[in-house]
């Protein structure tokens, strides 16, 4: 599965030799199998509950109803994700980065947090935002280009989604230093991708976190791709292996197993909360969709890879687990369908209703204190716009329209 640039090159050079190409393909299949075998896991792809001495205690109290809740969360965000793509296709939002395949990573990790913990996530982490209580349409206000940020970070204890790859990991570390200084027992959790692990910022964050033993958890969703680049270009060994070099304990979990992700994150969060310092979790998952709605993965990846990953689906195995527990009833199925429908209908209606921001909003919130230069610019521009406006009934020119 992990393609290294080296193996790709070798495949090029030996293109004439079918056996050599076959050998590379076999090596990739073997690497994928080895990777899967190495992951901490609590639920098999067929829904069997697997024992794991380290993780079991952290989900021991979960009954069928609690597992069903996790399932419902995943089903709802999968539906919201599909709605995001549909809304983009219909021109209601500008761009959508699908999370399809990463539901367990996002729900399992975010559900391990307390309300007073703080999250620094990325553009793909809609499921995390959902779990924090962000209204999905507030995310779409950003994707629609109506606002810079859709929510008050302090209301949900989650920073706006970050687009600059890796930057948020330092922010989480700094937030954790603040928690530490305050003598509080909250934790900062930051999300990053496999691609992000190459950024200087991420490596600097790991150093700061280790130096001060900050209460921060690094949660890496290794979805195998950074746009078109396979994870092998970013890391020659498992990404989780890097953290111990910084003095940070790490764990590699099956990112498509919501119980394993929840357990690992609970473990790491508790370690941070009780003065045990930072942890690093690599959740091994797969980006089943395109990078964003603007991307065409056929340019760079073999569709056959999807067939390898489809049976590892995060929802299917929990459905099977719940069936085994007798908890995947008709009523439950209906309840999940209703919840997904309701959420999807709401995000659609609310997204379509998002208003065009008024011209003056261009100048709002740039500074916390009055700024004479910007105040003058704002006044001049609004005066300029007013020349194009028909006077309204109140006699006040509206400033919402464009110049033409």
């Amino acid at each position, binding site marked *: 599965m992990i393609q290294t640039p080296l193996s790709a090159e070798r495949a090029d050079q030996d293109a004439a030799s079918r056996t050599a190409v076959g050998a590379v393909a076999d090596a990739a299949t073997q690497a994928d199998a080895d990777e899967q075998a190495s992951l901490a896991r609590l639920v098999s792809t067929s829904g069997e509950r697997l024992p794991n001495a380290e993780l079991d205690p952290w989900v021991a109290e979960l009954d069928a109803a609690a597992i069903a809740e996790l399932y419902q969360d995943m089903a709802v965000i999968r539906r919201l994700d599909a709605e995001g793509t549909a809304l983009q296709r219909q021109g209601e939002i500008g761009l959508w980065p699908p999370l399809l395949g990463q539901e367990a990573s996002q729900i399992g990790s975010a559900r391990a947090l307390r309300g007073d913990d703080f999250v620094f996530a990325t553009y793909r982490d809609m499921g995390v935002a959902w779990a924090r209580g962000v209204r999905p349409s507030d995310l779409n206000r950003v994707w629609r280009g109506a606002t810079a940020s859709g929510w008050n970070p302090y209301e949900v204890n989650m920073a706006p989604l970050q687009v600059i790859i890796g930057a948020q990991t330092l922010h989480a570390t700094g937030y954790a230093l603040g928690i530490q200084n305050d003598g509080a027992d909250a934790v900062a959790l930051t999300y990053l991708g496999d691609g992000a692990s190459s950024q200087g910022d991420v490596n600097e964050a790991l150093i700061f976190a280790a130096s001060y033993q900050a209460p921060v958890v690094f949660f890496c969703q290794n979805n195998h791709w950074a746009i078109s680049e396979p994870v092998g270009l970013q890391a020659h060994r498992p990404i989780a292996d890097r953290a111990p070099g910084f003095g940070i304990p790490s764990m590699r979990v099956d990112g498509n197993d919501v119980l394993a992700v929840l357990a690992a994150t609970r473990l790491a969060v508790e370690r941070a909360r009780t003065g045990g310092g930072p942890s690093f979790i690599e959740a091994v998952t797969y980006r089943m969709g395109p990078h964003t709605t603007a991307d065409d993965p056929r340019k760079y990846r073999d569709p056959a890879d999807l067939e390898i990953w489809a049976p590892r689906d995060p929802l299917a195995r929990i459905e099977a687990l719940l069936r085994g527990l007798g908890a995947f009833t008709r009523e439950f199925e209906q309840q999940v369908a209703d919840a997904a429908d309701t959420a999807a209908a709401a995000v659609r209606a609310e997204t379509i209703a998002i208003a065009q*921001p008024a011209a003056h909003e261009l100048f709002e919130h740039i500074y916390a204190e009055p700024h004479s230069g910007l105040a003058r610019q704002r006044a001049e521009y609004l005066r300029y716009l007013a020349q194009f406006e028909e006077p309204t009934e109140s006699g006040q020119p509206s400033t919402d329209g464009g110049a033409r």
Partner: protein
Amino acid sequence: MTVMTLAGAINAGLRAALAADPKTMLMGEDIGALGGVYRVTDGLQAEFGPRRVMDTPLAESGILGTAVGLGYRGYRPVVEIQFDGFIFPAFDQIVSQVSRTHARTNGVVSLPITIRVPFGGGIGSAEHHSESPEAYFAHTPGLRVVSPSTPQDAFTMIQQAIASNDPVLFFEPKRRYHVKGEVDVDRPLADAAPMGGANVVVTGSDVTLLAYGPLVATAMDAATAARAEGISIEVIDLRSLAPLDLDTLAASVQKTGRLVVTHEAPGFGGLGAEIVASLTERCFEYLEHAPVRVTGFDVPYPPAKLERHYLPDLDRIMDGVDRALGRVGAEAGAAS
């Protein structure tokens, strides 16, 4: 003559440069199999192999820092920064290393690094995808900064940038990527106009209007619109932002006596400020009115639904022309 898009012309120029010199190589995120998010490097990895067209790890400082080392080793790295807003992780390497290695080594080591940057707004994109960071680099001694506005210039100037022994920031107007134009692919590079020269694209006598990259087309539209009102605008495409071709610009201002400069970047401390100051110093006694800047406002590039208010458009440029003509009643639509 071949008809090409601006993006296609850069692709053709890169292909020519790779073919001409085995030391030329491309580096960047997603430039290989994908061919770049704008397909500017499409097909080049298949043609020249993964060591000459390298997909790099996701680390801009890493890309520029290793380009410096490759430069020491005699290579000509052509680096792609995926979007304007992602150049800042590399800012330290560009400003502290790329720009001054030649000076630091008393001229012994030159770093012929070309840094390609799709830049500018108007494409309805997400945060950090529509920025105009050129002034930071024009402000940095040791760097050359250019921006083509036509497929022909894109084709020629990318090859000239790669051939230059200095580091060159090559700002590609991404909202013009799909615009088509005729390109003479056979003319020898040696016969082309130098990369550092400005180009008078519309001759006129009443007002000099300076633009570059994405706004050249809008400036030409302004000249057309003004002509209908009996105003003759001379439009100059700067092409080179650092150094500026002050001789060409000053000759125009001395002829017209009026100057308007437009760019998407915020006005405060922007290139317009430098251009207006330099031309005022040179042409003070010829000026019949204070020069006018029509620029982006001094705010972070806004969310997509507000960008039409941020970007200089035909109306705001016409308003700026009116002000340069001293027309009564003209309202300030400019950013400064």
